[in-house]
């Protein structure tokens, strides 16, 4: 509709302009809001996955925690790694997504890269215990999925973690 009107409007505008005694006049284009059209899309998240395998639930929370600016698996994280490795070695067809996470300080993308370092550390630890590469995918959620939302060191510590997400 707007497009059809354009030539007529331009003619009107030019006519108006030529009768204008002032110098330097220019005629603007017609404003067409369609240039700014935005079509909304809703996405449904993929089926969630379980954070812990049924056999592992109860044994651990399925998370490994890290110190600030560190990618080293602490001693208290070893039992979680060991039990997950045992489960994966007994179930060679099972795949796990390791999701690395960070606290909220710093840029989104730099934190995504830091979370990847943590996920890679967990993947490496599983590999050393015999888990096959094709069973594990290491990814990062950066600072986007905090478990704790307060601005405090104890809260940050809960967010610096690697999670096991079984598919």
């Amino acid at each position: 509709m707007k497009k059809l009107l354009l030539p007529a409007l331009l003619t009107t505008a030019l006519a108006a302009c030529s009768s204008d005694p002032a110098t330097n006049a220019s005629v603007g284009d017609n404003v067409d809001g369609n240039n700014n059209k935005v079509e909304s899309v809703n996405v449904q998240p993929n089926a969630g996955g379980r954070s812990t395998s049924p056999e592992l639930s109860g044994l651990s929370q399925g998370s490994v925690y890290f110190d600030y600016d560190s990618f080293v698996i602490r001693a208290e994280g070893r039992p979680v790694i060991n039990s997950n490795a045992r489960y994966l070695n007994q179930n060679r067809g099972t795949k796990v997504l390791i999701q690395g996470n960070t606290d909220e300080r710093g840029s989104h993308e730099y934190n995504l890269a830091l979370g990847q370092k943590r996920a890679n550390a967990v993947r490496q630890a599983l590999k050393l215990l015999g888990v096959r590469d094709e069973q594990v995918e290491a990814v990062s959620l950066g600072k986007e999925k905090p478990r704790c939302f307060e601005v405090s060191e104890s809260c940050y510590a809960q967010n610096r973690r690697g999670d096991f997400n079984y598919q």
Partner: protein
Amino acid sequence: MIKTSPLLSANTFCGFFRVLCAVLLGCLALNAHAEDSVTIDVIGTGADRIPIIIPVFENESSLPHPVSDIVRADLERSGAFQLVDIGPLSLPESRTPDLAAMKARGAHMALAASVRPSSDGGRYEIRFRLFNVQKPEREADIGGMMLFMPPAQHRLIAHRIADFIYEKILHIPGCFATRIAYVAKIGARYELQIADSDGVNAQPALRSAEPIISPAWSPDGQRLAYVSFEARKPIVYVHALATGQRQVLANFKGSNSAPAWAPDGSRLAVVLTKDGLSQLYTINANGSGVRRLTTSSGIDTEPAWSPDGQWIYFTSDRSGGPQIYRIAANGGNAERVTFEGAYNVTPRPSPDGKKLTFITRNEGRFQLAILDLASRQRMILNPEAARDESPSFAPNSNMILYATENGGKGVLETVSVDGGVKQRLSIQAADVREPAWGPLLK
């Protein structure tokens, strides 16, 4: 609401004094009346800001929505103009205003503007002329325009008028009639929203239950690349705004993130972890031809192309903490760009290629900084800030849009590149982050 900022600290190279001109205050109060959620910080003498009169348009009250207050807010926010208030007086476009009287009020420039109903019905005709009131009468008219305005397009028309004024006076394009993208968190949901450059007219492009980060405009302004976590891992999508059509750009094993369009739109830089840690790759806009660009033993991320397409700036921890580097877009050796401070991230070169904005950590606070690439001088733009992130240059390189925090919620602000004028955008959503300023559309 008007808030004044404390003095910029001594490390700013401009050495601003904080003075608020009474006339300017009057104008701000007028604006505040129209958009009362807007906060404007004015820092500095205003000595290099051009005093301009933007009166109420003749017959403006016949419009369903006022226009002149949007023009005023745009010019004010740019940091290049100082508004001179003449109260409810309008200056009809059909005759030359009393230049001496305007000059006596301290103005250098004045707009004369009128509204008439258009003959086609439903629309309005807006005519305006710009006068340099310091010139003799025969040279004072520096140009005018006539625009047809459907009532629903009053904001776009206002932004175009502001663009015209900006370009006529400063001889660089205005970019008020552009769009911005950002992510809003609404309850547990995430929305990628598109709004006008002043944060008004927000429209959701994508709604998701999972996070969305790093929106990046294609150079033609029609598509956004971004990272979505809807599949439990970061995947890069390219999304056509007008149709809502989405395509996976990069979904390799591991994480896929940080899309950045090459200036010609043919390919993007992305960060992939398919070969180990986060490294830079280039990929064609259709997802083909992935090619590794960096090979470091640490993190390489947050790529951004120089406007000539020759360089890619990025963040790397190859020397320990994160610092900014650049590498030729076709590969080669990386060279370090930042040396001051232990934590420098998110490099974004200005579209004119002269400056680089980034985030620096300063005693535990994350602050917006700007580096002059020729002189190597660095300035912290918000010395008071603690949580600045995600800077994005205006397409004319004269303002920066960024995210920061207020009362635990994310907000978006703009600042002029000299640090002189800062404004919080009045976005409807209460918690917003990850802004990206869209390109100028030809």
